[in-house]
């Protein structure tokens, strides 16, 4: 009995050590998308799913960027227009429009984006903290990812899901 236990323990230890040894650098996987003319990204682990636009119900007494609530397989989720949240005009729905369902802990909400771009991997070292000037009080930007030819603003999932009204 004890031998078995020891073996299990050893195995566990090995498993715990292995990734540390093999790890060279932390890589974050991002999903990029367009809101207005700017490209943003969120960590892929923060995304529950991405769906095509479906019907939603307006919720009264909420800020304009909260479009309302929609039914995602039996759950009622809030729908937030990222364009309006970022101070742009209301999104015009077209065939590229998507609802990005973002999840952090138990909080889930749908966000309207204009278009998906691509999924990328980016090294953590290539992410700079958001510039002071850009860092508004809401803390929406987690950092700026540098890529070969462009910069991507990485959004802070937790801040996105935080109610600010």
């Amino acid at each position: 009995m004890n031998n078995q236990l020891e073996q299990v323990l050893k195995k566990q230890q090995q498993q715990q050590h292995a990734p540390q040894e093999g790890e060279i650098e932390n890589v974050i996987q991002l999903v990029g998308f367009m809101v207005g003319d700017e490209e943003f990204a969120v960590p892929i682990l923060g995304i529950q799913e991405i769906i095509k636009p479906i019907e939603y119900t307006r919720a009264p007494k909420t800020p304009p960027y909260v479009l309302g609530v929609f039914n995602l397989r039996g759950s009622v989720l809030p729908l937030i227009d990222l364009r309006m949240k970022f101070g742009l005009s209301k999104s015009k729905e077209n065939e590229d429009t998507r609802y990005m369902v973002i999840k952090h802990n138990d909080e889930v909400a749908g966000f309207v984006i204009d278009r998906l771009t691509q999924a990328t991997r980016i090294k953590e070292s290539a992410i700079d903290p958001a510039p002071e000037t850009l860092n508004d009080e809401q803390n929406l930007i987690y950092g700026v990812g540098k890529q070969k030819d462009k910069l991507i603003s990485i959004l802070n999932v937790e801040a996105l899901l935080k109610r600010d009204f």
Partner: protein
Amino acid sequence: MDEMEEILEDFLVEAFEMIEQLDNDLIELENAPDDLDLLNRIFRVAHTIKGSSSFLNFDVLTHLTHHMEDVLNKARKGELSITPDIMDVVLESTDKMKALLEHIKETGSDQGAIDVAPTVKRLEAVLNGETCDSADSEPQKEPEPQEEQKDISEMSEEEVEAEIERLLAQRQEEDRKRREAKKAAEAAGKEAPKSEEKDLSEMSEEEVEAEIERLLAQRQEEDRKRREAKKAAEAEAKKVAEAAKEAPKSEAKPAPAKKETKPAPKERKTTVEQTIRVDVKRLDDLMNLIGELVLGKNRLLKIYDDVEERYEGEQFLEELNQVVSSVSLVTTDLQIAVMKTRMLPIGKVFNKFPRMVRDLSRELHKEIELVISGEETELDKSIVEEIGDPLVHIIRNSCDHGIERPEERIAKGKPPKGTVQLKAYNEGNHIIIEIVDDGKGLDPDMLKSKAMEKGLISEKEADQMSDKEAYMLIFKPGFSTAAQVTNVSGRGVGMDVVRSNIEKLNGIIEIDSEVDKGTTLKLKIPLTLAIIQSLLVSVQEEYYAIPLASVLETVRITPDEIQSVEGRSVLRLRDEVLSLVHLADLFDVERVFSMGEHAYVVIIGIAETKIGLIVDSLIGQEEVVIKSLGEYLKGIEGIAGATIRGDGRVTLIVDVGALMDMAKSVKSSMENLEDTAAVSEKNSPADYNILIVDDSKTDRSIMKKALEPLGVTISEATNGVEALNLMKDGSKSFDAVLVDIEMPRMDGYTLAAEIRKFNKFKNVPLIAVTSRTSRSDRMRGVEVGMTEYITKPYTPEYLTNVVARNINLNVEHTS
């Protein structure tokens, strides 16, 4: 330490369950002091808790329960008769026990919070010095074997071995001390099983047997000694408990042997029900999944209807029908079954009332009997949890204000003992809880004058009040009929809390009373919070669900029935004046459609206040499943939750209470329907937008060609739906629309009617271009709001002229 925590958790769950029963048993005992079964049962509770708590090292709790046990044991053997005074002490100690357990639950320790010394002293007084209680040395061991066996399986051979070695040394040391001290008392019982283990690893079955024999003899010897030195026991018990904590770890082998020597705790087995404890969260998850299934079922039914229409008479329809109906049947059954798993008998709440009424009657020097019936009636768990407090208030009130003192009652020719009945039963989708007392009843005139005195109502209001309304006054905040403020009630809070609590559960309160005969309070509560009956209404394009429990009535009105008083809309309904508010104003609904010929007023009310809610139409009554809006949208003013309807859309459920508050601050904008659309400056013909709606590409080209000379901008749509979307979308404001009548998806008539529903399109010229030339067609065109009617074929010039005339003449939107 994890397993200790597990044991602790088990202990707490078990203890609370036992205590729940204990209170009732004690009350019963007072009425039947000689019931030996009852006494045994009560004794066992104290005993079991004592055993487990000493095992878990809760000294204070052990100390207390030990004394309780002694008293009960004496009573059990008939050496002590249970008088109300003794009962008071016992009940007091039960309360202390509960408090200690609560404390343990919160902090994991029983130290510090509660002082049991006075209670223990009183128990000792009852006990009257030392008494023989040999009985408890034997049963004391009972809780142990159970716990001991729990952990064995989790240990490896080696660990057990090592543990035993360690314990052995420790225990031998202790044994020596103990023998010297000669006050082993409690310890003996505890220690014995452990001593057995000493050698077990090296022992054969027979040796164990022999060893047990020896220990038994030893223990009997010690028991005798212990009786002499009973008082000294407590200190030692503590030490032993510590040792006991370690004990389970070393109990691998002796378990079977021990069963022979000690009576198994079979009493406990007989009361155990066949149940499994399930985390409520799991049930909630299950309920959510069922909700999704129900939704799927509803959609399936809808699709089946469509399919049935399209493929009437086909073979496969029959099969599909069978599948659909069996799925829907099973889903419904499943939903009911899962809902049932969340149901608890209301007896869980009722249980605490006999004790409460007993205490109250002693405190108030009244004789009150509580008669409970229907405690097996089941309610959703969440409601059972909420219903307790309101019931406490109501029953207290009945005892304090309702039931008179014995002298008074005799003078009135009633039996000196008052009765409070607590009944529960099902009625449709509701459960009814009735609290009936045979006390002095409510006097409507007295209530009214009292309310006026306190400035809660005006004299005029009082005059108009019916008796029933007067009874409801007791639920007003700040209202108390007790001349004297007592400890029990009459603080002026309570009954209004009762009402708000019941309303939170979507329940209704009714009072009936007769002076000197008594009062009946009836609570009507939905079986479950998750599903409610609602009235669906629509405002413009939006739907809202209003909980039906708050809807008093609905009336249809024409706009000119709405009158204005001091800038507020009011409605004269029969002999009442009702203040009105438009739901669209409350929820800032965009007024895209103008008000039709009729509007509907939904009269909603909570207790005495009511208002009229203007909506555009009533959709119907529907049973809806309430879903939370989640953390992000929680607590939006006026919205209580959401539901998903059969078509998969989300409908919001209004919060009637909040709505009534909001109504106070909202100004009606009923008549602000002036067309305020700004007319943008038109400089060149290209600034004019014309929309051509026709399914035929040729026809569209012909019209486009004809209009080319005008130089206007032209958009196209191939059917009514597309055209409507294009217009609603608002990116372009159209100055005229050319409409074909016969089109797929939505024909020209429907399109025109739809367009005219919008305020902002009231004056847009709609020009029908069609080959339908009959008079009835033209008539219909006019009815739905067509401005012009051009019959095909037409000359390009004619079309150009008509269009030009319409847009030129209508630049100021003055058609």
